[in-house]
């Protein structure tokens, strides 16, 4: 075998963590022999469940600690509640959640408006960065979009006039 140490002397730390014991057929490298105890470990204290927390039907309870970011609400919340009746590996679980996410976007828009906030979509999409770093591409795309809109409009106008003239 060639002398790899000298060949890679220019790479800081080459081979420093080489470990012949790193057997990839054993993912649980730190196996401790206690896995049979499963849920018998001493659970941390339970965070008070003072908001609605959906939990997977593949576990008996909510976890000892959970996030409180954005509890389910509105129509999207109703869909999410239904989704959690299905197991994590089920399409009945994930596809409704994706649908709920899309509905939730519109709920967010409505919520903004109800709070007197008109969403600045240009700002939220960060288009200032596009303008600063890809102005040519942005203008090209805008020109293509304008041309396409004009072409579609022209098509319907001409078709409408043709119908009327018949």
């Amino acid at each position, binding site marked *: 075998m060639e002398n*790899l140490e000298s060949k890679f002397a220019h790479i800081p730390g080459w081979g420093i963590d080489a470990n012949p014991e790193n057997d990839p057929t054993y993912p649980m490298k730190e196996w401790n022999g206690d896995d049979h105890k499963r*849920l018998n470990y001493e659970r941390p204290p339970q965070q008070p469940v003072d908001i609605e927390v959906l939990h997977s039907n593949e576990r008996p309870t909510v976890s000892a600690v959970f996030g409180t970011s954005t509890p389910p609400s509105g129509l999207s919340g109703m869909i999410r509640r239904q989704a959690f009746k299905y197991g994590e590996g089920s399409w009945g679980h994930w596809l409704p959640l994706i649908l709920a996410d899309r509905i939730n976007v519109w709920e*967010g828009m409505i919520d903004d408006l109800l709070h007197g906030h008109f969403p600045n979509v240009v700002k939220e999409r960060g288009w200032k960065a596009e303008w600063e770093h890809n102005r040519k591409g942005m203008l090209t795309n805008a020109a293509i979009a304008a041309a396409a809109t004009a072409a579609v409009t022209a098509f319907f106008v001409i078709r409408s006039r043709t119908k009327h003239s018949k």
Partner: protein
Amino acid sequence: MSMIAMNFRGPFRVRADRKPYPEIKHPGDAIVRVTRSCICGSDLHLYHGLVPDTRVGMTFGHEFIGVVEEVGADVKKLKVGDKVLVPFNVACGTCNFCNQKLYGNCHESNSQSTAVGGIFGYSHTAGGYDGGQAEYVRVPYADVSPEVIPDWMDPDDAVMLTDVFPTGYQAAEMGGIRKGDTVVVFGAGPVGIMAARCAWLFGAARVIIIDHYEYRLEFARKFAFCEAYNFLSLSDPVVFLKKETGWYGADVCIDAVGCEAAGSALQTLTGRKMLLQAGSATALHWAINSVKKGGIVSIVGVYGPTGNLVPIGNVVNKGITIRANQASVKRMLPRLIEHVKNGVISPKEMITHRIPLEEVAEGYHLFSRKLDGIIKPVLIPSTARA
């Protein structure tokens, strides 16, 4: 009392808003004032609307460091004023998985899914925690994962230890690399570049990285000392890699791309556009097909749940070992801190952009569109200087 925080409003739409100051909800919690937080490549999966149960109003951010402002009654190790780096996993430290140092698989930090542990700012599928792209953040189980930043450590190195460096390192570790191995990394994002760099630490003799952004490939050549190829210039990356490895295949292939892989029209259509798969599995296909028979495929790329068109027949026929996981950051921190201290690696060299938290929307856009030579952006709240 309120603070500035990133606020997700829907795919491709985020903004910096005023949100309530976080509260102690559990005796093991701490409140941390954020001094640095990164936008991660995997945040882009959320930003692009690919991860189910990403709710409007959430704050993202699982890579952050900061200063402890408040602690719960049960917190013993940390004290107010400590400067801490916070691994992206929320881990209890007592469940059977944490006992096996599988902190990425904690059973007491995520109610919504049993497949993944809790992750800061990473949808409700990962626990529904608000993340660190904010001025302040609630950190549960504060005595378990967070690590006090050594005095000598540059904060920019510290923030890279919360995810990028450990995930890249674990990707290489899971590859079971032996001295002299050829390693192929798919994806020259921050984690892929870091995985390529770490492959050398395990004794790789050849490291190849594949991507389709030239500027990232150029960065990888310099930072990770590796060969770098643009798959857009290859008619078939798998055939190319077979030829490059004596028609044998690589010893180890690493998928550092995940659900947004480009390169296959079918995968892009069904995985990214129609969301009929848990993301496009193109990089995974290439990894499985490019590795040698009996080789190892290591996956750290993020995929959504649940189904994917994966060439499992080739896995069987080739006798491949697949290892995959979210990084268990806490397990690796002592060794990685040692590497930073000894100058083996300086992860902060990957940081290319510093963006005020108030300009988070521009930061996401820049990173999503790969503009201005961006490799790794860091968000800095105005309160970081207080």
